[in-house]
């Protein structure tokens, strides 16, 4: 027995030592082959700077990269105009990520079968976890950006989903430094709102972890898709900043259509987005920044119909909504940083009852149907004579995002994020007696729809040059939402839903 144990231990120990040695060799080779750390390679190629100059880890900008962007993708070195580039230079970068991922949805209502008379027959419903895993692709981005002339910059980003269906994710022309003032920059087109924590430059890629929940949170059943500050919007932006970018202010006027083209939604509805921030010099701790944002808008709830079908672009009956919060970017020396975004959101009671987007688009390329009765996820049309159910009230909520990084080197970054969204007032108040758009009879439980999610991961760039980027990406996301799982088939009680995703991929651009 002992001899046998010793034998096994020795044989266990030897492979373990060998594995440790092999691992060390692999790490050694990887580290020794690593070149000093390099993102939009089109810019890197233009200016001969490595990715790491502008990106904490691409695509996330660092302070210098933010200033470069605020200057209209210019170094302000009198060599920004394309006339100074080799005629063969074309500012194009593509990015795509082959991945392997495993998705686990905690509670799914699935049919149960019994064989009746020799025929498989659905006899009931059960709740179970559904898991799937396999190799996959991300969408494809074709970034083209740069300057048309000194102080006139542009961005064009045709982007596809993984099936290859393209849309214009970002298109704008920007007049920079008007009247030689960094305080006067005007942008027109479809662009990302001036979020200090940029979702378009997010370091994570999973379905739920690849977006900021705080930027997209909508109460369950709410018909307002227009307040998603994470989506690119169509409009006009003013941005001003000090020469060193310590002080930044911005204001955007965008159509309340969540970035959808062809004016398919409101006839005359607009949203304003305002930002301001100030950075402070804290010695070796780095530059710290605090700021605010506020989104105040109106969007249509009534779409005149023809033959009962809402007419695209006809939306009237505007109702209001708002999102506001604080942002802080804190650096704790060269390796550790933390960004915090808070939000208080509020929608008009009409949105809370499912009115808003009634013409068949959810703002993210998907479609919705117009419904005649409250159904979760199915917006209503506020036709003349419509009244809100008794007990309807304006939904409101509070949320926060905490994202921290440990930057071991420009080539290796560890990411951790926690987000929470908490309803503070449900759309269906205590006097509510009918089935609301969230599918619940009577008043909605106070925690219904709350979200908690965390994401952890790391990105390792085996090389960095000013020509291309490659990141070995690893990530895990877990998301919990209160009450939105299928009803318990036995008790009829609300259930919570938990989903998770594990993802590994090679994120590259050139």
């Amino acid at each position, binding site marked *: 027995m002992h001899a046998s144990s010793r034998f096994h231990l020795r044989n266990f120990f030897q492979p373990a030592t060998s594995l440790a*040695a092999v691992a060390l060799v692999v790490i*050694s080779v990887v580290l020794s082959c690593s070149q000093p*750390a390099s993102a939009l390679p089109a810019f890197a190629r233009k200016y001969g700077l*490595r990715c790491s100059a502008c990106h904490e880890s691409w695509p996330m900008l660092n302070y210098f990269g933010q200033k470069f962007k605020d200057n209209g993708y210019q170094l302000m070195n009198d060599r920004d105009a394309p006339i*100074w580039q080799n005629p063969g230079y074309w500012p194009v970068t593509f990015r795509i990520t082959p991945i392997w991922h495993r998705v686990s949805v905690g509670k799914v209502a699935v049919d149960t079968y019994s064989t009746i008379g020799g025929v498989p027959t659905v006899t009931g419903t059960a709740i179970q976890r559904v898991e799937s895993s396999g190799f996959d692709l991300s969408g494809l981005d074709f970034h083209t950006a740069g300057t048309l002339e000194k102080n006139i910059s542009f961005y064009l980003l045709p982007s596809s989903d993984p099936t290859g269906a393209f849309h214009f994710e970002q298109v704008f022309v920007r007049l920079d430094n008007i009247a030689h003032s960094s305080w006067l920059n005007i942008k027109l087109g479809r662009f990302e709102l001036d979020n200090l924590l940029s979702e378009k430059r997010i370091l994570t890629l999973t379905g739920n972890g690849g977006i900021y929940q705080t930027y997209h949170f909508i109460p369950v059943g709410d018909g307002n898709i227009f307040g998603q500050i994470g989506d690119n919007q169509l409009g006009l932006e003013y941005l001003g900043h000090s020469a*060193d970018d310590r002080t930044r202010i911005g204001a955007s006027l965008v159509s309340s259509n969540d970035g959808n083209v062809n004016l398919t939604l409101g006839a005359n509805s607009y949203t304003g987005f305002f930002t301001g921030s100030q950075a402070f010099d804290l010695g070796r701790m780095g*530059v710290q920044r605090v700021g605010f944002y506020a989104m105040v808008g109106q969007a249509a709830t009534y779409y005149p119909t023809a033959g009962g079908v809402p007419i695209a672009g006809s939306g009237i009956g505007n109702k209001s909504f708002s999102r506001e919060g604080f942002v802080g970017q804190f650096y704790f020396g060269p390796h550790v940083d933390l960004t915090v975004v808070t939000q208080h959101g509020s929608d008009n009671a009409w949105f809370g009852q499912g009115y808003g987007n009634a013409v068949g688009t959810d703002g993210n390329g998907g479609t919705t149907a117009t419904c005649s009765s409250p159904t979760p996820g199915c917006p209503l049309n506020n036709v003349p004579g419509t009244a809100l159910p008794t007990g309807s009230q304006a939904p409101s909520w509070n949320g926060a995002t905490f994202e921290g990084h440990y930057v071991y080197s420009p080539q290796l970054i560890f990411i951790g994020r926690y987000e929470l969204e908490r309803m503070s007032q449900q759309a269906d108040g205590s006097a509510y007696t009918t089935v609301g758009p969230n599918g619940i009879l009577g008043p909605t439980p106070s925690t219904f729809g709350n979200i908690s999610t965390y994401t952890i991961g790391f990105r390792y760039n085996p090389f960095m040059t000013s020509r291309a980027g490659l990141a070995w990406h690893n990530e895990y996301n877990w998301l919990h939402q209160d009450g939105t799982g299928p009803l318990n088939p036995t008790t009829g009680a609300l259930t919570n839903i938990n989903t998770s995703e594990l993802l590994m991929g090679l994120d590259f651009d050139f």
Partner: protein
Amino acid sequence: MRTKLQNWMLLLSSAALLALPSASSAQLSTFDIETRIGMESHVGNVNGHAKDAKGDYRRYCVGCHGDLGDGNGENAVWMPPPMYQQPRDFQLGVFKCRSTPTGTLPTDQDLFDSITRGFDRSNMPPWNTFTKQERADLVAWVKHFSPRWLNEKPGTPITIPPEPEVTPERIKAGRDVFAKVQCWKCHGVQGMANGPSASTLTDDLGRPIAAFNFTDGSRPKCGDTDQDIYRIFMTGLDGTPMPSFADNIKPDEAWDLVFYLRTFMHQKSKEKEMAKTLGLKPVDPNAPVGQQ
């Protein structure tokens, strides 16, 4: 037992392999750079330390200036002179923008200002996004590449007298200075960088270099205030054909020259207005000295 020994040997060799990159860097260096890692800088009340700038240098600077600070970063080859300027070779310890006399080392403040301001018409942007501490650390890091700082002290900054009031007479006098010290030979009679010597200019390393064109809206490399321009031609841009005129021009004449150079520049200025009112003509290279 032998197997165990082999495993531990493998572990040790792996650890040795880990240490290889730093060892090979030291062997490649012609200077014992690492021994100067204790280099400091003093900018105002901020003390910079070279060792604290290693990360920032690697993230932001190394692509152009190279691991050894010799200006041979991977991108240097894509900055062909004279359209672009090659990255500075810090090992030489020669710098264009100084407040100190020609041939001397710059002050820490000079290097700090250069990092903060950047260099127009080069790929060196203004790095004013850094904290003062980070910039002071980078100054120390830049210094640690060159042994000059071990043996020499920075020069004493030149004294710039108070700027006099600009008058039409001073502008005309400035034109005489422009002719006397033959600025036109490189910069051209209208400041357009097309003088007879312009196409032949090279820097101290034999690389082609362009004279400054005052008329195309570019900013002078070492700052664009009147004091900066005064300083440029009284200290010279070391490493370039632009000499110091400290021995040729009196301080009063230097201010006259500053005012005259302003008349070339793209930006609106009272000097330009006065020159226009005067009907001031460019210098005549063939005119006898003092008879412009």
